């Protein structure tokens, strides 16, 4: 008899314990001090990946036969602002990509100039933070070449992208460090699957930072700034999603 009660007590105890643990997890995630520990995982993963693996390793590239039949879009599919709509209407003739911040020579680059720069074409896999993947062919100049042309200063540590699409009234923004900015596969793509980049996928220019998740690949890039700290950008965490919904700044995992 007693063993039946024991079993029941144990099963009940386990269920109650699980419930306490579950609500405990949510309490922990709401406590500022505990959050710091929870959020340490990002730095630990970044540190481990950077320390144990080759910083210049290239992501696998695929053959045309391995591409997704349909490359879905997500995030902003059309910025829809008057300024952007006007740019689309005259085929981005008025578009200027501004490169500034900690550079010796600020640039203002037209789309034809960008397309004339030596470009890299790569068939790579795009991984959304949600879990899906799509394979497509991207083409554009290396970000590193543009930063060198602008004579990026030694004091620069991050590169910040400001975009034409608005989130809550402010432009989308993202940032990467110089390891990823100068990675050979980090490009400013103006073409997808051998077509001029369309509005849904980030026309006229979209960042490809292949070793990180999709939200780092800023679409509709308008400005590129070299900075020494992310403190003054948005709320200081380096990107719209990082600042507003706790996404990891390092999205290599």
């Amino acid at each position, binding site marked *: 008899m007693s*063993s039946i009660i*024991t*079993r029941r007590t*144990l*099963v009940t105890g*386990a269920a109650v314990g*699980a419930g306490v*643990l*579950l*609500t405990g*997890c*949510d309490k922990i*995630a709401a406590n500022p001090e505990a959050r710091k*520990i*929870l*959020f*340490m*995982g*990002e730095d*630990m*993963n970044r540190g*481990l*990946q950077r320390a*144990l*693996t*080759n910083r210049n*390793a*290239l*992501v*696998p590239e*695929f053959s045309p036969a*391995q*591409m*997704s*039949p*349909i490359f*879905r879009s997500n995030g902003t599919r059309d910025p829809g602002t008057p300024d952007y709509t006007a740019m689309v209407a005259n085929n981005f003739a008025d578009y200027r990509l501004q490169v500034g911040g900690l550079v010796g020579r600020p640039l203002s680059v037209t789309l034809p100039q960008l397309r004339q720069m030596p470009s890299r074409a790569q068939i790579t*896999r795009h*991984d*959304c*933070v*949600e*879990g*899906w*993947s*799509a*394979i497509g062919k991207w083409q554009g100049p290396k970000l590193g070449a543009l930063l060198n042309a602008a004579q990026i200063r030694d004091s620069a540590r991050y590169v910040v992208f400001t975009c034409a699409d608005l989130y809550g009234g402010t432009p989308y923004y993202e940032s990467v460090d110089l390891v990823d900015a100068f990675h050979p596969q980090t490009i400013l793509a103006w073409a997808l699957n051998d077509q001029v980049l369309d509005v849904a996928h980030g026309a006229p220019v979209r960042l490809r930072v*292949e*070793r*990180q*998740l999709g939200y780092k690949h800023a679409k509709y890039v308008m400005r590129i700034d070299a900075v020494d700290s992310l403190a003054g950008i948005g709320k200081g965490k380096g990107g719209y*999603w990082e600042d507003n*919904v*706790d*996404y*990891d700044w390092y999205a*290599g*995992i």
Partner: protein
Amino acid sequence: MNDPTAPMIIKRHRMATRVWHWVTVVTMFIMIGSGIGILKAHPRLYWGAYGANFDSAWTTLDQWPSWLVTLLNLLTIPASYNLAISRRWHLLFALVLAFALLGFMIVSLINKHFQRDLRVRAAELSPREVAHDVKEHLAFRFHDPKRPGAYNILQKLSYVVTIFVLIPVMILTGLTMSPGMDAAWPWLLDVFGGRQSARSIHFIAATGLVLFIIVHLALVILAGAWNELRSMITGRWHVPPHAPEDAA
């Protein structure tokens, strides 16, 4: 002194085993809960390198029975959908899971826990032995009266599969989903057949772990809940008085 009714106490589990067990209990709980949260962001699974909404999925959440979806909702960390926080939990405790397993494996090789307790001998795998053990399980007899402290063959196999196959597959398929790791270790993609296949295998192996946990808990309860639980806390285990063998 040889009073057959007096309980005999043996030292069942070493400190390293006990610490790893409970660290992994908490870690598994968090990994399953936060993993469900991440799955909900895109509850479709594919085979191959790519897979998104326009591609054909081999399973999607809307095909699953409603009791399962309810159960998944109950276990999700955090309780209300938040992909960013689910990922924070998952990617921090992934490190705990992986390094705790690594430490446990090293210590268990040194203290010979693996060689002594988990090594499967060819003779144990003979159909006769396995059939005998199945029969013993069905009769709720879990210990060989001659060697009560030893694991039986079904127990050994389930622990070996969990420790050397399921958890390592979870860790490696998890790494395969990291775009950074795919650049550093592209062989991961070859081993698992692409990122979306790795994601599918991750969930299949997770299901295997959940089944292991259910069977493990059921057998702990059947074998004598408090005695088994105490042995994993203090290490001390009362050898159960065995029923007369001649009943059969």
